[in-house]
């Protein structure tokens, strides 16, 4: 067991290192964006003095290295800075005490919403895809296999907004079962929240299902030529048991990895679906912030996305290790 803990510690350290490198990349990339917050917010009234003043106030006049170190130092302490856009610029010459919103305050509710949507989607999509993958492997080369294949492939090939509108058409307009708008607000009951989240979650399920289902199918079929599968058949085990008990446990590592990638996508890549359903997630906030050059929010979002990828891949690695008896029980 010690060796497993050692591997996990190593992966964690590597994850932190990756995050550090990513922070440099994010900072550089965001600073390479054309345009400037001060000019963007002042618009027509951008006199050189006003621009200069806002820049000084937001410390945009400092050299990049200084700003990066300040940002990194804050981020390590959990302080992601203050949002530019929420600052009270009416009083930027005078005192601005208490009127600023921190990035964390702005992101937190949105992030919680995104996690809720991702959670609901994962709860539907993961069991469904793995189950379908197992069935497709069991009934490979049959009508069922072909149908699931075509279905999942066409859903992943269609644009997300198209899937969203098709679902709205069938589940909200023709059969008014679910609300087509997902206006979530604080203090909403879990049931109501779930009901409002269901349509975007179903849309996303259609988007992420294909990868996971096809990987499950492929990973299982890949093992069917193994001597231990032949042995299980020669012991008179039923086809279902051969697949679920003998093939699936050995196919877990690649399946877990694909699941992790897709869950990361659910956290970072759902802007279009959020827009269609007017779902107040982090994706929309991110796009809005880029539009007005609200650099602290953009950087914080990027950092959260990167952490989500790193954490989920780390979890996938750890689960793959734990699912492998060779690593769990060394000789």
């Amino acid at each position, binding site marked *: 067991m010690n060796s497993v803990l050692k591997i996990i510690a190593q992966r964690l350290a590597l994850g932190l290192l990756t995050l550090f490198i990513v922070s440099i990349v994010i900072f550089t990339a965001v600073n390479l964006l054309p345009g400037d917050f001060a000019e963007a917010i002042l618009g027509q009234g951008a006199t050189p003095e006003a621009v200069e003043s806002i820049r000084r106030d937001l410390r945009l006049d400092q050299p990049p290295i200084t700003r990066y170190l300040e940002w990194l130092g804050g981020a390590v302490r959990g302080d992601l800075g203050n949002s530019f856009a929420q600052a009270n610029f009416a009083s930027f010459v005078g005192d601005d005490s208490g009127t600023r919103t921190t990035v964390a305050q702005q992101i937190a509710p949105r992030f919680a919403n995104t996690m809720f949507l991702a959670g609901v989607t994962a709860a539907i999509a993961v069991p469904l895809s793995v189950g379908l993958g197992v069935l497709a492997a069991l009934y490979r080369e049959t009508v069922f296999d072909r149908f699931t294949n075509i279905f999942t492939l066409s859903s992943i090939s269609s644009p997300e907004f198209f899937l969203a509108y098709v679902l709205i058409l069938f589940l909200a307009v023709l059969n008014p079962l679910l609300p087509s708008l997902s206006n979530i607000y604080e203090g909403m009951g879990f049931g109501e929240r779930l009901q409002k989240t269901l349509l975007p979650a179903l849309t996303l399920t259609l988007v992420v299902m294909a990868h996971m289902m096809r990987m499950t199918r492929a990973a299982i079929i890949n093992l069917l*030529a*193994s*001597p*231990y599968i*032949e*042995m*299980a*058949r*020669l*012991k*008179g*085990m*039923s086809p279902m*048991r051969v697949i679920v*008990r*003998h093939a699936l*446990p*050995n196919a877990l590592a690649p399946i877990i990895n694909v699941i992790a990638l897709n869950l990361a996508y659910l956290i970072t890549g759902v802007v279009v679906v959020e827009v269609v359903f007017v779902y107040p997630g982090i994706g929309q906030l991110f796009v809005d912030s880029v539009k007005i050059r609200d650099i602290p929010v953009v950087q914080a979002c990027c950092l959260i996305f990167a952490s989500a990828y790193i954490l989920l891949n780390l979890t996938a690695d750890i689960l793959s290790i734990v699912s492998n*008896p*060779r690593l769990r*029980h060394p*000789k």
Partner: protein
Amino acid sequence: MTDLVVMRDIEIEGRSDEVWMPIIKGIDLTLKKGEVLGLIGESGAGKSTLGLAAMGFARDGVRISGGSVEFDGIDLLAASADVKRGLLGKRIAYVAQSAAASFNPAHKLIDQHTEGPTQHGVMSKSESEMDGIELYRKLRLPNPDEIGFRYPHQVSGGQLQRAMTAMAMSCRPDLIIFDEPTTALDVTTQIEVLASIRDIVEEYDTAAIYITHDLAVVAQMADRIKVLLKGDEVEENETREMLSHPKEDYTKSLWAVREFKRPQKPAVHTDATPVVSVQHVTAAYGKVPVLHDISFDIHAGRTVAVVGESGSGKSTAARCITGLLPPSEGVIEFDGEALPGNYRQRNKMQLRQAQMIYQMADTALNPRKTIGEIIGRPVQFYMGLTGREKRKRVEELLEQIELPGSQYIDRLPSELSGGQKQRIGIARALAAEPKFIICDEVTSALDQLVAEGILRLLAQLQDELGLSYMFITHDLATVRSIADEVVVMKDGQVVEQGPKDEMFTPPHHPYTDLLLSSVPEMDPDWLTNLLAERGVDNIGDAAVGKMD
């Protein structure tokens, strides 16, 4: 006795490139209750396919296209999948060649053992667990009470093979198919497994089909022997009758003990500089020590056979000589000159002088390159030949290994047979014009007759080119036929070394003696006598010793 299995006029086909080719061409087979039938033949004879057909089973890409299979009055070819599943594992069991690959790596041995009895409704899980432990004890597995609670990778090959036999026994079947169960094992381990299989089959009066390519092994196990050649039956008879009076020429050629034996060469001058001199080499993989202070010399034009069981350090010694594993202590001298430990620090000349031929020609040849490219690469790299000169040299090399160049030079490895591929491996080594070649189990994946051809070729090349060989093998018959000197290794140490004739004449070192006496002989009473001589308990102890 009544007939348990009756197979009539069985025809089996295999698909290759969308065409169905015959594998088994109309064979009859009957097996009485409690009888053991040996199926013997070279690879490609169809013995495994026939063995599986006796279970009513055909692998993917294989189909039983004609004939009938009856098991205890049930027509297996007409039976529904459910009926067959009810028989498999419960009344007909299978023991595979590689237990390491045939146990599911994700589950503990005992859970795989109890799966059959519980799923077939023969016993409850706890009853079956108790019974499994009892079977482990009968098969003389060390620590029978706890060994089942390990995962397959935590158990050695010989022990896994016995655990698999126990698993086959779990429902007390009427018939077990043993598919080369000891082929992948060392001779000393093989004896333990053979003895335990034979005892348990006798104790429960189980009928068995024992598939192997090793005559001496089948002579110990079977009541009757059936010889197969390319999907046809050659002949069948009672074991003793078959051994003493084989009728067909093919059987006789199998029976003939290997004739190829090189005479012992005169002793080397004591002051001659050896081509390769391994001096007090100690080496480790990471922190795991594998070689402890080994020394031996290989002289010009000589073959030194390095023998030992798997894990004895033979291949590691070769890795040290080639510089793949730098020794932690000691030196390797070539023509009296010390070589750098790491191959990266050796110059082209030093690298060229020592070449290697591998065990699995299949994996050692790049499947996407033609023979001309495979052999041409070292010709160009070491000898600097290009274009027409290179091609001419490759053709010469192919000539040397008795494969006409014009015919083979543009083919891919997949178009060649196993023996031909091994010859290409030899040509590739020769292309560098080395003084010294390491042959790592070069014949162990080949059939006996093909292997003998390879050994003859190597001997002939040695005479023509004055090559020195380090011949790594676990097969003592090969040592007998080709070696000049023998080095016996165990647990990373050299236990005995000397000229071949001395090594094969008593008195031996106890370990050499154990190795020599473990090689099965054609005499059907050999195993019985040997066990009586050694005392059965001894074998159990040896197995326990291996656990550490």
